[in-house]
């Protein structure tokens, strides 16, 4: 999996979690909370969907790694590739 593929996968999860949001212009290097209406419960939803859909665990002390699409890709891509 590439980092771009990882970003798309995270965006697909966000599309379900925040269905009212326009995700067409999400900036990769900007915090998701600064450009979308996402709260702490929504981030827990992202963690849950990663667990359910992809068997990926994000420990609580590493939630900050999900702050932006860039940080998500940096943190999650190796985890996805380790699954294969």
């Amino acid at each position: 999996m590439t980092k771009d593929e990882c970003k798309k996968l995270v965006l697909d999860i966000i599309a379900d979690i925040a269905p009212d949001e326009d995700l067409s212009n999400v900036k990769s290097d900007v915090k998701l909370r600064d450009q979308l209406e996402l709260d702490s419960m929504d981030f827990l939803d992202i963690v849950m969907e990663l667990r359910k859909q992809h068997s990926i665990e994000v420990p609580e002390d590493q939630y900050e790694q999900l702050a932006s699409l860039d940080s998500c890709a940096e943190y999650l891509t190796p985890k996805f590739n380790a699954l294969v």
Partner: protein
Amino acid sequence: MARQKGISFEFDGELPGIYIFAMALSRIVITGVGLTAPNGNDIGEYRANLLAGKAGIQFMDLRYMGTVPAGICNYDALRYQKKKEVRIGTRAGSISVYCANEAVKHCGIDWETMDKSRVGVYVGTTEHGNVETENEIFNISKFDYDTKFWSHHHNPRTVANNPAGEVSLNMKITGPAYTMGAACAAGNIGVIQATQMLRLGEVDLALAGGVSESIHTFGIFAGFKSQGALATHEDPMKASRPFDVDRNGIVVSEGGCLYALERLEDAVARGARIYGEIAGYHINSDASDYVLPNPTRQTECMGKALERAGMAASDIQIVNTHATATPQGDIQECIAIAKVFENCPNTYINNTKSFIGHSMGAAGALELAGNLPSFDDGMVHATINLDNLDPDCALPNLVVNEPLAIKQVDAVLNNSFGMLGINSALIVKRYDA
């Protein structure tokens, strides 16, 4: 002490002084209605279908239960909620949000300038949390029952105040917002709670009634089935048949109805249209059985509601029955009604569940709403699906299968009873300035 047809009703003790003060203080009126029923998403559509004999029951597939008749609502949730609110919240919350917004719109109050800290939300529910808990158990069953897959949304979804809380979040209401758990008497009790809080001066506008999401829990259906009280019929539209000799139980429905209620002086001051006035009510308990109703206590409940309203039984033109189409429950209520309304040739009896099934916590409020327009149109909607009247349910003036035009409707008595023996009777009368 009031005497009615040889039956005496009296309060067992002294009424608290504040109650007498409050009663003298304000008359409480209905100025708006927001509802969704299996056969209508506003009071106009709902009433038209009740008068046209149009039921709203269909077959649905339900986890573990297979195909069952049920009353399903098709309101537009996204009229007042974002998709995310619908996803995170509950069906009962969504129904409540729809009804509350509709009630505010219907009552015509200036919502933008309304002090939201003076608005109360009082939502009656039969039960809450079954749907969400069953869904989560089903969810983790796909993960070998590992609870790390249990949703963090579970607790806010299942706290008992969820439906009212979702209304407060959606409408930015900062006044009291809570639910009353009162089995299937809850819809009436929501309105009664609002009446009391308005009289006490706790709020200036109340959004009150009841809601149900019960069709989404297999447990309700399975429980009634095990009890021998779940309706079956080859035609779902005919499945809910109170008073018919072939009735075989309850059709479970979802729905909601919240009223806008105000003190009369406030409603008059803003020139509001008044749809009816709360004339009297009573709540009591059977204290006799978990599920079997008690006609003696039901008789007392109706009698004390009449007494509080300062009315005789003959002052009531419509008695809307609670009857759910269980073999025993219908007969018990008929015994109670026959006792209270004997020698009342101008009192007519009907039943709304024959159209919409049993909408549980919403039932009392929705069924009252089905009859409220009778003050304007002088019609008594029928009880339908009554092909062979059970002789034990042969009440005089039961309005069967076709609506009836009568001279004038001045007062409606609405019965709602529930498990564990909770009874409620609510009387609404025509508003006269």
